[in-house]
């Protein structure tokens, strides 16, 4: 394999490898804008120009492949290529490209959303000149262009790296975008009559190295350096994309994808990303409640458990239905199984397989729940797709529904039958993160923490296990289902794992043999591929 030398470092390159990829995997910094590992190489920005020994001019590291030289032609006697990232030729190329890029850039960093995570800022700091020599009026270009429903374009900040264009033509294959005009007036535009409107459109904002494309939902919300971030998993379909939640003062301001080659690559869908907006409208009840003829009464948990257990006993041993959810983590599922065995008389429970739309070629899965694969692995039955809930309730007198809104999510036509079936229950317990239409029909409501408010593990449709994070701290009375179960069993005089997530993860390990020799540390940051998909 060709031997490459960059500065003082020798690198054994792989077949067909470019200077840039060899440098990146060896921890050598070469600045670049238009290059993206998931997109075609265009060599347009010229930021990655480096001096190659023997070449008449600097070459773009992103597009120059290191090839073998015959033994008598080796550079310095042994190398197939010798690159310098610090020589005067390289530095001059870097400085001048940055100078060119900033000529007509508005330098409106103080009011730019990208500030703090902007590659123009980063490279100017590292490679640029402190002063501008451009003493002319800058070229003006369209600003605040609503290029798509979720994306706003600023033609003045744009450096024409074409990452967004290539994303739309190569990744989503929707091809909405193009360069328009010429020379210094070049712009990114949607084709006439089109909008940047595809299920992954906001990914263009992620890959935009500057502030040219901003997210309509996030722009002007907060300076990024004030955000608190936590790595987690998207709950919105069985892909379970690796994501990062960015929060500020208790609100989720944005959700962005994390690179995970085995799960989502670099991308996530707009639906999953815009969960941050939907979270604003979730109707929450922070305390457990019991409904009587006089209506709902809400209690603290200390008051609640005796009242609840009494109510449970009153319902006797009538047949029990448990409707579970792929929105439960593995730990919550383990907790349900223990609860079922010790306090409910052993109903096995069924996780509802809620689907919608179709699988696409990129990420989106029609299975709209993140952890159904986990349910299968935990030995919990998964229903038919969009099954008739009334069939599961048939012949049952008591029911518990966890993390599902069977009424609100039901199609209009089925809803009356479901409502009727729920009304016939002697005891209906609903545990969930939101006070939904189903919860309103319950006799007992137990609030739970939302997906992003708890730690847990989840398995995607490929059998990839990842850990979710407690991105935000919910009120103490909203807690994960496993904590509820611990308290429930304790109140019933049973023994239960204590200590929250780690204790329940230990229970999960018992149920999933493959995890037995793994620690939590093994799950970070990208999770763990379980070897076999459960039958």
């Amino acid at each position, binding site marked *: 394999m060709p031997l490459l030398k960059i500065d003082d470092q020798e690198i054994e390159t792989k077949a067909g490898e470019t200077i840039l990829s060899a440098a990146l995997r060896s921890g050598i910094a070469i600045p670049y804008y238009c290059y993206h590992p998931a997109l075609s190489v265009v060599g347009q920005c010229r930021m990655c120009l480096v001096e190659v020994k023997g070449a008449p001019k600097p070459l773009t590291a992103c597009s120059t492949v290191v090839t073998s030289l015959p033994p008598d032609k080796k550079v310095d006697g042994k190398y197939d290529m010798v690159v310098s990232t610090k020589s005067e030729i390289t530095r001059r190329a870097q400085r001048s490209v940055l100078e060119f890029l900033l000529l007509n850039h508005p330098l409106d960093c103080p009011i730019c959303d990208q500030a703090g995570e902007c590659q123009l800022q980063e490279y100017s700091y590292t490679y640029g000149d402190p002063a501008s020599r451009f003493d002319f009026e800058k070229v003006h270009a369209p600003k605040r262009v609503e290029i798509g429903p979720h994306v706003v374009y600023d033609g003045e900040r744009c450096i024409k790296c074409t990452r967004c264009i290539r994303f739309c033509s190569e990744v989503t294959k929707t091809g909405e975008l193009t360069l328009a005009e*010429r*020379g210094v007036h070049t712009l990114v535009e949607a084709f006439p009559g089109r909008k940047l409107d595809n299920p992954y459109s906001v990914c263009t904002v992620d890959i935009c190295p500057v502030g040219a494309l901003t997210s309509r939902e996030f722009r002007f919300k907060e300076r990024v350096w004030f955000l608190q971030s936590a790595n987690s998993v998207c709950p919105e379909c069985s892909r379970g994309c690796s994501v990062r939640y960015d929060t500020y003062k208790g609100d989720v301001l944005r959700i962005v994808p994390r690179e995970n080659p085995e799960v989502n690559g670099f991308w996530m869908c707009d639906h999953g990303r815009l969960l941050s907006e939907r979270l604003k409208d979730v109707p929450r009840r922070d305390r457990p409640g019991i409904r009587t003829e006089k209506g709902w009464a809400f209690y603290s948990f200390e008051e609640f458990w005796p009242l609840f257990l009494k109510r449970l006993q009153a319902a006797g041993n009538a047949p029990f239905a448990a409707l579970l959810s792929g929105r439960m983590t593995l730990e919550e599922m383990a907790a349900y199984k223990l609860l079922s065995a010790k306090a409910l008389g052993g109903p096995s429970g069924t996780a509802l397989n809620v689907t919608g739309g179709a699988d696409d070629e990129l990420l989106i899965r029609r299975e709209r729940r993140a952890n159904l694969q986990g349910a299968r692995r935990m030995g919990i039955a998964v229903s038919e797709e969009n099954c008739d809930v009334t069939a599961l309730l048939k012949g049952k007198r008591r029911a518990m529904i966890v993390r599902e809104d069977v009424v609100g999510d039901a199609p209009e036509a089925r809803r009356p039958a479901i409502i009727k079936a729920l009304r016939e229950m002697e005891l209906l317990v609903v545990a969930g993160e939101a006070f939904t239409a189903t919860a309103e029909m319950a006799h007992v409501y137990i609030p739970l923490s939302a997906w992003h408010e708890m730690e847990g593990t989840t398995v995607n449709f490929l059998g990839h296990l990842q850990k979710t994070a407690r991105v935000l701290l919910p009120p103490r009375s909203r807690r994960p289902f496993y904590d509820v179960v611990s308290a429930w069993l304790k109140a019933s005089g049973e023994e239960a794992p204590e200590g929250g997530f780690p204790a329940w993860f230990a229970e999960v390990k018992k149920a999933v043999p493959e995890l037995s020799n793994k620690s939590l540390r093994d799950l970070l940051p990208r999770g763990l591929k379980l070897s076999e998909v459960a039958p």
Partner: protein
Amino acid sequence: MAETLKILTRAVGVQNSTAIDTYMHGGGYEAMMTALHKMSPDQVLGEVKASNLKGRGGAGFPAGLKWSFLPKKREGDKQEPRKFLVCNADESEPGTFKDRLLIENDPHQILEGIVIAGWATQAVGCFFYIRGEMPQGAKIFQRAVDQAYSRGFLGKNILGSGLDFDVWVCRGAGAYICGEETALMESLEGKRGQPRIKPPFPAGYGVYGVPSNINNVETYANVPHIIKNGAEWFKAIGAPSLPGPRLYGISGHVNRPGVYELPSSTTLRELIYGHAGGILGGRALKAVIPGGSSTPVLRAGQIDVTMDVDGLKSVGTMPGSGGVIVMNETVCMVRALHNLMEFYAHESCGQCTPCREGTHWLELLVGRIEAGEGRPGDTERIAEIAGNIMGRTICPLGDAAAMPAESFVRQFKDEFETHIKEKRCPLKAAPMTSRI
């Protein structure tokens, strides 16, 4: 003074020269028949290689060598790998108008060269990409193509040789950048005309991803003569570093502007003062751009050089496209450069940074000097910006803009400095701001 040649331009002035019968009456298509009937593709390729025919588009790359880069049928292959030829008729370099003369006066000569090249390379056809502003040329060439089909010189199994070869005439939309070979291919495919990054080169990945060979109109036009008269005959014409007949289009302040077919051993002085009849109005010569606007400019004292590669190299410039632009003493070099910089800034495709931003900056700087608002250090800055564009871009347009900028301020530094110091154009009483 060397006589003008009558090889490529022999049909110019001949009545009805574009008709296939006129062309054949003068011996046309004989070279094609020789090639197809008496020579193997490799023999044709060998002859063109031996002739050292250099590309006439501006870069001067040896044509035979370029042809040989196309993939060949290897042992065990069932059929010839699919490949295309492209004829670059997007002539748009300022000061260059030689291809147009050939297209409009002798289209069959070009066509014959293309078919011979098709035989040598075993290509399936040729895209004739003609500049949008040449509707007449496109019409004439299309008629020539139709005539060639009707005689069986194009199409299936040409003259029983087994060669299936088509020619498609495609019109550009008038962008200078589409004369760059890969931008031309993008444009052919219906995409935005912007150059591709190389490698892969067209010989590996050309039109629609098919291996392609692209040559200039004049290059193809030379091919029938090489086949007919042999490589040795061809090499005997002109200087060794640029053999064969060459078209020089001379424009500007000369008494007889036009296209002259000359051996490259002719000097610039002979062309300007001999063939072109000297400087208009009997004034003094000031500057010459020897090979299209992209080539470095020469001062009046530098014209005693032959117009081949070596001769022009000795004064720091190059033959380029053969478009000679002559400027007399009345020309303000700042204004002339501003005109060129406007052109390149306007024609930059905008994809890569140094050219997109740099050409615009150069236009502004030169324009400011011309307007009497130049600042000390501006000429040095022009040279530095040109240096920062040179060799840093995907395609040669960046270099094409940088070379005149650098050479104008180097060759005519005093004139630029006078503009800056006196805050006016010394050639005019008042500062000029309007375009030429």
